[in-house]
């Protein structure tokens, strides 16, 4: 489907600049409900114009965190600062944030137009300005023809657009999106993700999105905070989160990954390729693994070796060096995904390792099939040692 592209995106990374002042700052936030700790001493900085995602399973505290920023919940402890100003005593209706609700929360007794105008009317803007802004918003979300309809007369995708238009109409400093695309089907969701990014880029707003959908977070975000049980596990760009997860939890939450339990054999700072990081040597039940990574794990400690399936090469031929980063096994199952095929390879000791291969040629029958004995290999810098 043809999509009109916005201006070319530029590299954007204020969090790497030492003097950048965060736009939103969560400072040691704790939220308790009785005995249950929803958010546990959490600190987080979000920068202006950033598209920031809170990603985690349901119940991880991400929605609570967002609701505290909107003002619907008060933190038990800690402060939330917006542009350096403590929000504690600001009621939700005075905060410069607007939220797009998961349920959309459109006013059922008002037309699309009235829904979008609602926030502007609260500001007491003159009538002409309100209707101009409403028209602008309707155009932005391509709903000009539906202005006079009630929410009940719209499809799910259209309602989602109205909700977006309504939350954008006031040009909030921060737009909060609570699982905004959850109710849409896949195709519409992907399209809308790109539209969201364009809108955010065009209007230059700060977006904070709550989602449990890692693909969504990866697509739209400048940075992602992966949360679990009220704690932020890692805050990083999508690429960093995917390529360099800091814990097993993050590694397993984002994308598909093979985890092999290992013991550290040697971590002596030995450099195999000039200019590369030193090598950590591991042993995983007889499989010798070498990883180029700066790592503090001492010899003898147990760690995990993590490698994404698409970084594992699969071949019917035995590699030149079978002693390092190589293992053979039997093709136990194949998942054909169209763009990729995923091979589940059963090692001699019974463990299963997944290897993904891009289907670059149009072949109906692939050379590797069920029951084949295959070799799995990977370069020194493909995998990752995880100590936690």
């Amino acid at each position, binding site marked *: 489907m043809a999509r009109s592209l916005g201006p070319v995106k530029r590299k954007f990374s204020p969090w790497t600049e030492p003097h950048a002042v965060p736009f939103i700052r969560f400072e040691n936030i704790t939220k308790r409900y009785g005995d249950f700790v929803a958010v546990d001493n959490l600190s987080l900085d979000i920068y202006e114009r950033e598209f920031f995602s809170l990603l985690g399973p349901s119940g991880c505290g991400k929605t609570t965190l967002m609701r505290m920023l909107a003002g619907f919940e008060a933190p038990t402890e800690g402060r939330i600062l917006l542009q350096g100003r403590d929000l504690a005593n600001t009621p939700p*209706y005075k905060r410069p944030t*607007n939220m797009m609700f998961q349920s959309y929360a459109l006013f059922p007794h008002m037309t699309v137009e009235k829904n979008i105008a609602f*926030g502007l009317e609260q*500001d007491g803007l003159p009538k002409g300005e309100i209707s101009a802004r409403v028209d602008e918003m309707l155009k932005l979300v391509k709903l000009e023809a539906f202005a006079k309809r009630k929410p009940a007369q719209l499809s799910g995708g259209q309602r989602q657009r109205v909700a977006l238009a309504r*939350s954008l109409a006031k040009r909030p400093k921060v737009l909060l999106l609570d699982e905004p695309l959850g109710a849409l089907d896949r195709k519409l969701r992907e399209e809308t993700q790109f539209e969201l990014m364009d809108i955010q880029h065009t209007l230059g707003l700060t977006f904070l999105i709550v989602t449990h959908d890692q693909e969504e977070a990866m697509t739209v975000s400048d940075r992602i905070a992966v949360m679990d049980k009220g704690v932020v596990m890692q805050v990083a760009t999508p690429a960093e989160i995917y390529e360099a997860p800091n814990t097993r939890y993050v590694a397993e939450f984002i994308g598909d990954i093979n985890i092999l339990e290992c013991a550290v054999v040697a971590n002596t700072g030995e450099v195999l390729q000039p200019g590369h990081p030193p090598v950590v040597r591991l042993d995983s039940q007889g499989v010798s693994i070498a990883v180029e990574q700066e790592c503090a794990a001492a010899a003898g400690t147990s760690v995990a070796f993590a490698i994404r399936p698409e970084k594992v090469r699969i071949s019917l031929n035995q590699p030149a060096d079978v002693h390092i980063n190589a293992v053979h096994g039997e093709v136990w199952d194949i998942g054909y995904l169209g763009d990729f095929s995923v091979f589940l390879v059963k090692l001699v000791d019974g463990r299963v390792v997944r290897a993904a291969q891009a289907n670059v040629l149009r072949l109906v029958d692939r050379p590797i099939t069920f029951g084949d004995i295959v070799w799995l290999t990977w370069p020194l810098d493909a995998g990752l040692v995880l100590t936690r």
Partner: protein
Amino acid sequence: MAEISAPTHRSPARWLVVAIPYIWLVLFFAAPFFIILKISLSDTAIAMPPYTPVFQGFGDIGSFFGGLDLDNYSFLAEDPLYLDAYLSSLRIAFISTLLLLLIGYPMALAMARAPSTIRPTLMMLVILPFWTSFLIRVYAWIGILKPEGLLTLLLQTLHILGPDDQVQIYRTDWAVFIGIVYSYLPFMVLPLYAALEKMDGTLLEAASDLGCPPWKAFWRITFPLSLPGVIAGSMICFIPITGEFVIPDLLGGASTLMIGKTLWTEFFGNRDWPLASAVAVLLLLALVVPIVIFQNQQRKVT
């Protein structure tokens, strides 16, 4: 699954199920109404039954219809007592309904916003008075409101009233309003509660998020969305209050003029069945208008 029965819409059992409500309405509404309508067109007579003509069979049908006329209706139009009674009834019903809304709405709202664990208890408390007979509860109000009653006693004990002063509420319109509001409150609260309870709470969060303070959000979101409940509750109260007889009779004074009481006097006091029937027919017609409004509203909601 031995066999699938033939299309059921022609079976006698199904026909019966559909017919029962109609039979009920014909027997207990339409038939009595036509009897009343017929009596309203008759003339008083010192006889049993106390009107003429009486249906004597189809042989005499010509003179039977000849004996019917609109005399009672023209009499109602001539005597201002009846128009006054109608208007007074509508006035009392209107004011009572307004009071019921003012008292019932905050109650229903508080119930709907209460934690879901205590909602059944609150609901129970609203329904609880129904466990005692309506008549007994109205009589109890006499005990409270009469000059030497409980209210006087309480106010005297609290030294708000002097020992020789008495509360002068009993046998006034005030007592009628108190009695009506007390008796009809559950009928107002329950439809309001039903409408408020199903309202999505995130709508108010959305309103607040868009810069609308809570009191304003009430008028822009909560109240408009509860309108079906407001209309249902108002109609359910307004219609029977207009024809209310027991409460004005027991608590009202000589000056409390209500059509239900007038009707009772015509029927039992004056034994003028035809005139009383004419009053009843007009009362019904006067209430058809709000009932039609009510049903239109219900259709829009569903």
